[in-house]
């Protein structure tokens, strides 16, 4: 899963997105300098047309870039910002800054509420879906911002006056912000799953008890084997979603990817911690950076139950009599 974009991005992340950088941003930093490095290298405009100064890469080529960002636990909504700028292609007045997605919101007494927006604390703008329209709201205009109170979490709840000026509006677009959010989130899950597995395999080789690596014990081997199966399943589910020349992954592909990765997240996190022992739940050890993400990302933008419900409705509404036919019809490239 290498391409020239990955090769160009990785050195930046090695230098500027170390585990201690991640901890610092999660603690209280806005991540401006990391964002600036990524932006200066052109990665925010990957999907934009070449005429607009972008790289115009395919959805398929974008995938390994998003995967890499998540493997380094980049605590900024880079994937969403890339996607937002792509959604607004042909428009020049896209807000400059980090953009997070909030496909669901509620309105109470003339106040618009976006609850628990992932990466909310580090973004400058939030895209919401208002029926057929997409709107961008400026975080600076919010009348209230509440952190989740969860250690290291960037989840933030925003409130705006209902008639707050939106920075930009895109009317009557077919864009499905929920599915887009979910599929980007699925990449984060698949990449974190892979990273957690790699760390656990390494630990199994390194940690010695009873005079040998714990990875030599059959009970540990079998747990790692099962983890490997879920790594492969999660990876291929997101690969399938991004297997497009251009455009947004389909809702069915997005749903399958989010459901499948979310379901594996729990098993992967639990097994990784079981094999690591007590060291795994320390703040100092890096495993927690990823397993916290697994739990959080599983719940964000619809957990597996949300998407399973939607997939099941499509199956029951279809005229096919064989599930294999349904799958081919809805996921054939």
């Amino acid at each position, binding site marked *: 899963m290498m391409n020239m974009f990955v090769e160009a991005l990785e050195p930046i992340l090695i230098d500027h997105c170390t585990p201690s950088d991640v901890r610092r941003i999660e603690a209280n930093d806005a991540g401006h300098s990391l964002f600036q490095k990524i932006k200066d290298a052109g990665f925010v405009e990957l999907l934009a047309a070449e005429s607009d100064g972008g790289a115009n890469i395919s959805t398929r080529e974008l995938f390994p870039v998003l995967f890499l960002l998540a493997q380094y636990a980049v605590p900024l909504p880079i994937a969403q910002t890339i996607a937002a700028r792509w959604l607004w292609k042909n428009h020049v007045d896209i807000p400059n800054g980090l953009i997070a997605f909030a496909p669901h919101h509620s309105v109470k007494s003339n106040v618009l509420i976006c609850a628990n927006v992932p990466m909310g604390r580090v973004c400058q703008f939030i895209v919401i879906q208002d029926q057929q329209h997409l709107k961008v709201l400026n975080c600076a205009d919010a009348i209230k911002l509440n952190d989740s109170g969860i250690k290291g979490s960037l989840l933030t709840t925003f409130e705006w006056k209902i008639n707050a000026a939106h920075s930009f509006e895109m009317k009557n677009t077919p864009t499905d912000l929920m599915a887009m959010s979910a599929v980007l989130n699925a990449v984060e899950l698949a990449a974190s799953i892979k990273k957690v597995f790699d760390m656990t395999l390494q630990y199994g080789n390194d940690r010695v008890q009873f005079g040998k690596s714990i990875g030599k014990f059959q009970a540990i081997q079998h747990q790692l*084997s099962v983890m490997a199966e879920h790594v*492969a399943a999660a990876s*291929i589910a997101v*690969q399938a979603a991004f297997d497009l020349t251009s455009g947004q992954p389909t809702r069915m592909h997005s749903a399958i990817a989010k459901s499948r990765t979310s379901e594996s997240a729990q098993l992967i996190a639990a097994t990784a911690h079981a094999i690591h022992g007590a060291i795994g739940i320390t703040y100092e050890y890096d495993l927690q950076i990823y397993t916290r993400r697994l739990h959080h990302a599983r719940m964000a933008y619809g957990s597996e139950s949300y998407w399973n419900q939607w997939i099941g409705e499509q199956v*029951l509404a279809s005229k096919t009599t064989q*599930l*294999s036919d349904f799958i081919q019809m809805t996921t054939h490239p």
Partner: protein
Amino acid sequence: MNNLLDHFQLAHLPQSLDPFRIEVKQFLKQAMPPLTADQKARSWFGFDPEFSQRLAKQGWVGLTLPKTYGGAEMDAFARFVLVEEMLSAGSPVAAHWIADRQSGPLILKYGTEKQKSFYLPLICQAKAFFCIGMSEPNSGSDLSSVATRAVKTDQGWCLNGQKIWTTNGHQCHYAIALVRTSGTTANRHAGLSQFIINLSLPGVTRKPIVDLTGDEHFSEIFFENVLLSEDTLIGVEGQGWDQVIAELAFERSGPERVYSSIILLDEWIRWLKKGHATPQRVAMVGRFTAHLSTLRNMSIAVTHQLVQGKSPVIEAALVKDIATEFEQNIPALLEDEMGADPNEIIDANLLRALAYVSQMAPTYSLRGGTREILRGMIARGLGLR
């Protein structure tokens, strides 16, 4: 360290096979015998020589074998399509199944020209059905401990011993058996060889074993001074272990390791569509769909490696382990659903299919290598052993 996982790259069935799939669907529509859901649920255990011969007339038995020997000379992707359609339709494929999937390819790879030109055309005409002689009463997961022994004679070999759990052994014409030809069980993998044994030879006794569903799908085979000619040895004397491992890659890699419970699942969905859906059941259908779609892609990725001429032994083991868990999950969860409302009357056909699949599901993670053996193989692939 993680090369194994890098092998799971998305691949697609070539679009050029779309017309073939339609052709298969049309054939099945007219060639399928009238079967109830629980009969269809027997999946690749349904033994029907007549159906196999109709399939052979289409040229679809020995699908991947060369045309020279009567095969269709199509690739593993085509076999994936054919198998996926036949299993989804609940076709009774057992008679020719083993020969098509592994005995034929094994003979093609290791056989002499004489062996190839004798057995392969018979396989392609669905006139020679094969079974696999691996397990013995004291050799299950520890396969290299097989005690059945062939001793060299003037004219060939003299075989003594016993095989067990042989799928359809009592209904097949030939068995390809792994037996010891030199040394003792202490020599482990060395000294084992494979033979093609004509099951009508004097000294061969076969006994079907009744399973818990009332079927006789597997059997015991006894060999008492069975005289085998020279040319029944397949491959190289003493290389039987390596040949068996290569054979198991064929055995484990197909979509049959994903679709064993599909008839039950499709039948249940059909029933849900008749007004029995609840939010919980709808979500369950969605979950099964997400899993099936993903497992199918994993299986296609392994098939892609077969097409490239590789022998994806460990990759196939990985897919088989996670896929059989899915297959076993279906009856396990549906039992709860179908018993959740005592006021609900479940369709009798569906109930019989559930009972059959539920009773047979434990075999999914036994046949072709147990869960524990497969996880050990994956661990080796990860560099842990």
